[in-house]
């Protein structure tokens, strides 16, 4: 009668096997907390030493800087806080319209890359290749300085559109909107293409054998199934669009970032102003994410 040899790993006492991972986790946790505490204490010590305790009193003072006509009324005697609200709504405006337009553009371009029409397919490919490989800032500068302000007549059309819609639509807004839409649309087109690709070929063939034409196959059979693969990818593209909207200052549009920029040079309150900016974007991105997750659940439930 002999005991089978115990593997050396199991010979360790029981407590040691259980305790080690817990200790490890605790150490990592401590490390993270310590790093945060280090940063915060460094910040506070240095701020206090320079006589700059964190303070938000200045938010109520008159901003005294001009802003271009936006969605909300604004006078230069209004407070910094109101200027932030105006800027946030200006950002929201371009992000929301941009989301809708870039989705339409992206889905069209993504679907077109599966078209039987050679020309349409190549056009979609060229669009994606060109738009995706140019940095977003260059997109904006191109649309603003080349298309919207240099080409004759474009400005007049934008003004006519603004008068007709009775909305404060400026050349700057249009340049930002079109730039962001074209740039993000290309990424969405790729997401859509990937989603459609994930639908088995058999589905196309089955639809065709039922006598459905190309358009109806796509609309009734393929896209509904592709949606599951598309939605998560769309989410991150939407958030990218929201983040890229901070490039607005390059084309003279008064978004939240441009206003924070002015505010912190006027007040010297860069940390507070940036905290507000970061929170604003966190809220915006969480709203987008939350909305997309909701949509995702609906799609999944419908099967």
């Amino acid at each position, binding site marked *: 009668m002999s005991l089978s040899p115990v593997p050396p790993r199991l010979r360790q006492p029981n407590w040691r096997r259980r305790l*080690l991972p817990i*200790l*490890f986790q605790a*150490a990592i946790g*401590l*490390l993270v907390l*310590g*790093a945060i*505490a*280090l940063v915060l*204490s*460094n*910040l506070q*010590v*240095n*701020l206090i*030493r*320079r*006589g*700059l305790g964190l303070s938000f009193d200045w938010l109520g003072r008159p901003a*005294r*800087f*001009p*802003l*271009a*006509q936006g969605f909300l009324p604004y006078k*230069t*005697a209004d407070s910094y806080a109101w200027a932030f609200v105006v800027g946030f709504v200006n950002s929201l405006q371009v992000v929301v319209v941009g989301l809708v337009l870039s989705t339409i553009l992206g889905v069209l371009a993504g679907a077109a890359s599966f078209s039987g029409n050679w020309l349409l397919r190549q056009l979609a490919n060229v669009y994606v290749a060109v738009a995706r490989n140019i940095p977003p800032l260059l997109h904006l*500068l191109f649309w*603003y*300085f080349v298309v919207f*302000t*240099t080409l004759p007549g474009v*400005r007049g059309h934008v003004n006519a559109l603004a008068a007709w819609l009775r909305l404060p639509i400026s*050349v*700057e807004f249009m340049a930002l909107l079109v730039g962001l839409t074209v740039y993000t649309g290309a990424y969405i087109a790729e997401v859509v293409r990937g989603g459609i690709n994930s639908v088995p070929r058999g589905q196309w063939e089955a639809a065709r054998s039922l006598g459905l034409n190309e358009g109806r196959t796509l609309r009734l059979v393929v896209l509904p199934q592709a949606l599951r693969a598309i939605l998560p990818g769309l989410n991150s593209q939407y958030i990218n669009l929201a983040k890229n909207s901070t490039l607005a*200052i*390059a*084309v*003279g549009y*008064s978004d939240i970032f*441009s206003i924070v*920029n*002015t505010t*912190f*040079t*006027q*007040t*010297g309150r*860069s*940390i507070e102003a940036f905290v507000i900016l970061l929170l604003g974007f966190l809220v915006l991105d969480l709203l987008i994410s939350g909305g997309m997750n909701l949509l995702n659940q609906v799609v999944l439930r419908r099967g």
Partner: protein
Amino acid sequence: MGGNGRVCHVKMALPSKPLMLAKSFKRFVIAPLLLTLASCATAPEDKVSLLDQVQSRGELRCGISGTLPGFSYLNDDGSYTGLDVDICRAVAAATVGDADKVDYTQLTAAQRFTALSSGEIDLLSRNTTQTLSRDSAGGNGLTFAPVIFYDGQGILVRRDRGVTTLEGLANQTVCVGSGTTTERNLNDVMQTRGIPYEALKFEQAPDRDQAYLNGSCAAVTADRSALNSSRSGFPSPDDHVILEESLSKEPLAPATVDGDDTWADAVRWVVYGLMEAEERGITQDNVADYVASATSGEQEENASLRRFLGIEGDLGTKLGLPNDFVVQAVEAVGNYGEIYGRHLGPDTRTAIPRGLNESHVNGGLHYAPPFN
């Protein structure tokens, strides 16, 4: 946001064997971390002045605009040139003995103060207006060196618009640079005089000018010197005029971070040295003769000149600089008048009459306190 160059570093030694991890964690990670935390919290006040840091580094880190002809602009050969740049060069010559030992950082108006207070640059020489808010600890927390250019905010319009006063801009759009004093000045003046207007903000001066040229705005506002520089780069400069009236006082001065008096004093007296040199007629070409003459020549008995040039006394040493720091600076870039003439004089593309920027002996405002 950080302190004056003092950063809390965490050094971590990684354990060599994974099995030792738990024990090593305590020894190598947590202990130093707590130590650092404790040392950060107590924040010792024996911080090293930027002057010592610059001297031991052997290089000055200077923040400039880089997009303003006459003040700081890229040469054809890739080096920077201009009035602001020469201030950097003079300070480098006086502190580390070589005007070329400057590391330039191009900054936008909005970036400049953060770059300075975070310790990314030692000296901000970027056509920056001295104001109370920027000077005070409760504001941007800067310390200003003497004003090197007395400016005023102006308005640039197309000549064919026929606008001669601000009232002519009623209900028009004006392009402004974001993060500058000009945004607020424009608003103050227009509101006081009851002139309705719209503003378009741009972060970069070239974008602001391009938007104006493309017709997005009827006028551009900025410091008169900046408008003058911008206009010099336009396709047909003569089609644009700067309105007679000034909207504000814009004294442009180099700045250092608050709370480092040793460094601020050094920069201040280098700038004064350039002005004093002009008053005394000491130039880049004749500074060596002056030194020779004051050492053992005609001027041997001229005590104030000897002190100024660092031959006698310890003026430079008191500042923590070489005793002949003025000589070094003037040898490198010339006196203030020469610098002005080189970048903004009548023969340059960016010519601006000296006006207030003359030495006080010629009726201007540049006046250096005694070198005593």
